[in-house]
C-alpha cells in the first residue's frame, strides 16, 4: 500500500512526516552495530516480499506483511520499512520521495503496534502451532487494518469528502491482501517455529 506523491495536502504531509521522523528517531536508537545486519536483511526481505505476487481473479496482489515484520523487529520496523520504501520508490516508482514519511508512518506504526500487542504472547515458552497461527493472523490484521485506517485518515485530512470514493476503493482493495497476508503470516510463524525458533526471539 503506497500513497503516491502529490495526493496529500502539504499540512497533512508535514504532520505525517513529523510523526514518521519521531518513529524513525526511536527506531534509530535501537539500531546498533549489533542490530544493523539483522535490520538490513529484514529490510531486504520486506523489499523482496513486495515483489511476491499471488494471483487473485484477473489480477494479482502483492504481499505486505508489515505486521509480521513489526512483530519480529519492534521499533526497528520504522527504519527497516523506511529503507525498503526508499528503494521501492527509487527502483519501481512505488509511492514517491515526498510521501516517504507518510508511507513509512502508515506501514510502520501498525507494525510497531502489532509488536506491542502480540509480542508478549509470542514470547511465552513453547508456543503451540495454533497459537502461532492466531498470532500471525492478528499481526496481519493489525498491520493491514492499521495501515488502511491511517491511509484513510491522511486522505480524509487532505481532501475531505471529495476523496471518500478513493478511500473506499483503497479499503476494498485491501480485503484480498488482508486475507492473503493473514494466511501467509500464520504459516510463516509456524514454519519459523519448526525450522528456526531463534528467528522468533527478540535480539
Amino acid at each position: 500500500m503506497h500513497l503516491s506523491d502529490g495526493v496529500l495536502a502539504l499540512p497533512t504531509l508535514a504532520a505525517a512526516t513529523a510523526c514518521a521522523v519521531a518513529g524513525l528517531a526511536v527506531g534509530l536508537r535501537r539500531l546498533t552495530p549489533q542490530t544493523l545486519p539483522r535490520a538490513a536483511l529484514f529490510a531486504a526481505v520486506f523489499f523482496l516480499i513486495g515483489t511476491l505476487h499471488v494471483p487473485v481473479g484477473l489480477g494479482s496482489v502483492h504481499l505486505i506483511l508489515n505486521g509480521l515484520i513489526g512483530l519480529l523487529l519492534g521499533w526497528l520496523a520504522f527504519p527497516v520499512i523506511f529503507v525498503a520504501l526508499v528503494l521501492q520508490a527509487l527502483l519501481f516508482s512505488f509511492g514517491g520521495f515526498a510521501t516517504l514519511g507518510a508511507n513509512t508512518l502508515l506501514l510502520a506504526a501498525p507494525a510497531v503496534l502489532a509488536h506491542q500487542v502480540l509480542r508478549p504472547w509470542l514470547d511465552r515458552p513453547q508456543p503451540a502451532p495454533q497459537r502461532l497461527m492466531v498470532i500471525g493472523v492478528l499481526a496481519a490484521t493489525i498491520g493491514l487494518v492499521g495501515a488502511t485506517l491511517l491511509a484513510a485518515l491522511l486522505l480524509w485530512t487532505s481532501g475531505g469528502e471529495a476523496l471518500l470514493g478513493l478511500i473506499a476503493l483503497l479499503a476494498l482493495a485491501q480485503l484480498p491482501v488482508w486475507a492473503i497476508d493473514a494466511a501467509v503470516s500464520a504459516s510463516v510463524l509456524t514454519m519459523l517455529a519448526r525450522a528456526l525458533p531463534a528467528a522468533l526471539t527478540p535480539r
Partner: protein
Amino acid sequence: MSHDPRPDGRLRLAAALAVSLAAAATRSTTALAVLAGLAVLAALWLIVSAERSPGPLLRRMAVVSVFVLWIWLTVAVDWRTLSADPAGVALAWQMTLRIESIALTALLLLGRMDGIDLARAAVGLGLPRGLGSLLAVTVRQIAVLEETGQRLRRAMRARAYRPRFSRRTLRVSAQQVAWLIIHASLRAERMALGLKARGLGAMDWPVRPASGWRSLPRSEWAVLAGVSAALAVTLTLTSIWDRMHR
C-alpha cells in the same frame, strides 16, 4: 578533487525534493500544468538526445498512472448519477498534474542512481548516518537474498508449480517468505560475527563521507540551478496569471 568514480547525487536529490515540495504546496492548476509540461519537455529532450530510452521511462510512468486511474474513477465520477462531477474533475485534474510532474521529475533526476548512490546523497543532505548505512547494507543484501529467491523459484518451477489463487500457492508463498527470513536471520548472525572478528562495527559500513560542495561538477550545479530557476519562474508567473484571471 574527488577520486570517487561514483556520481554524487546530492544536488539532484535536492532538486527532486524541491520540485516535490513546490508541487505539493501549490494549489494553482496552472502552475502544476506548467510544471508537468516542463517535465515532459525535459523527458523528450533527454530521449531525443539519446540520454534516456523511452521504454523504461514509460513503463515506470505506467506504474504511477495506475494510482491516477484510481483517482479519476473515484474522484471525478459521480457513481450515483453516472456522470462527471465538475468539482471532482477539477480536483482529479489537479492531482494528476501534481502526481505526474513529481514522478517524472524524480525519474529524470534520480533514475540513474542506485541505492548506494542515493544513500550517499541522502547522508550528504543530512540523513542520519545510521539510516544511510542501513540503506547501503540493505542494497547489498537484496542482491544476495534475490539470488536465494531465484533458486527457490527455479526449484518450484522444476516441480511444475504454477501460481494461482489456491491454498497451495498460499502455502508456497509462505514457504518462500519463511525461507527468506531464515536465510536473513542466519546471514545477519554471520555478518555480525564477521564484523566483530575484524573489529568493525556495522555502522562504519559503506556510506563514505561526501566530498566538499565545491568539488561537485558544474553540470550538477547547473541541474540544481536550472530546476530552481524553472520553479521560481513558474510559480511567480502563474501566480500573477491566476490573479489576473480570477
